């Protein structure tokens, strides 16, 4: 239990740092990559909260599909930020 608590706190801290970084980082493409990491750590937290169904859904949506949607949007707008 102590180990899982430590793991969840560490993951949570990394997730919050990554979320702030995604909003302040200069290039939009880097922000999209970092949001991918946020969704990854959210998936870990869901697994630690005994919700494997939600973890699978978050992994299957957050890892590929939402990344692709944002990349497509950036590709269509074009140009730098």
């Amino acid at each position: 239990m102590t180990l899982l608590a430590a793991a969840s706190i560490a993951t949570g801290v990394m997730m919050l740092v990554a979320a702030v970084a995604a909003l302040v980082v200069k290039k939009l493409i880097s922000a999209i990559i970092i949001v991918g990491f946020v969704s990854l750590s959210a998936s870990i937290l869901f697994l630690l909260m005994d919700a494997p169904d939600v973890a699978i859904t978050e992994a299957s949506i957050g890892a590929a599909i939402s990344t692709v949607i944002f990349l497509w949007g950036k590709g269509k707008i074009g140009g730098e930020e």
Partner: protein
Amino acid sequence: MIRTIVGLIIVLALSVVVISSVPDYSLPSGLQGVGQDYTERGVNDTGSVNLVTAVVVAYRGLDTLGEVVVLFSASTAVVLVLTLVPMGANPTPSSSIVAFTSGVLPGSIVLFGIYIITHGHLSPGGGFPGGAVVASAFLLVMLGSNKIPGKSKLLASIESLAGVTFGLLGFWGMMMFGQFLNNMVLPAGSPGKLFSAGIIPLISLVIGAKVASELSGVFSSYRKAGGDE
């Protein structure tokens, strides 16, 4: 700059309000109300070992039908709005290794998605994540191959067929027992087997087909808006 600071102040004030509204910082002693009920009676009521799927498909099946409708309208809106976006430039072709991989792997990813859909009542999974995995296989084909897969008619027919089947499965229960989406129109079987839990696997399959076809439709319309015709 002033924007950032004002935003920060608003957010901090909100966090103070939320933190001060929590009465005490102790652990809850146990489940209450409907959650307790589901964990006690879920397996006997539905025959599904995975209680989350039991709640999604059986207890709250009507809500899920509504959510599928929301998903349908959102994806339809995406496809409609995308027809307004003008065509983009030609994309760079992918390398031969990526093209080869995108020809080889999708089959096994689809198999994997079908496993997640059909074992929704036995292990983590169900229609929603499984459908997303199947849509990901479609995505891999679109990322890797340099041709635009043109099967949108098939996708549309799968989508509407799945929607109609969901409704029909619901009305089946209504006709037999006077209750929409009654689970026991098929035998419950013994919990833990593949063929068990009444119509839960069938509805999972329908939801999976619906989610997969809708997400794939969104992807293919993105690709069409960007490619050269």
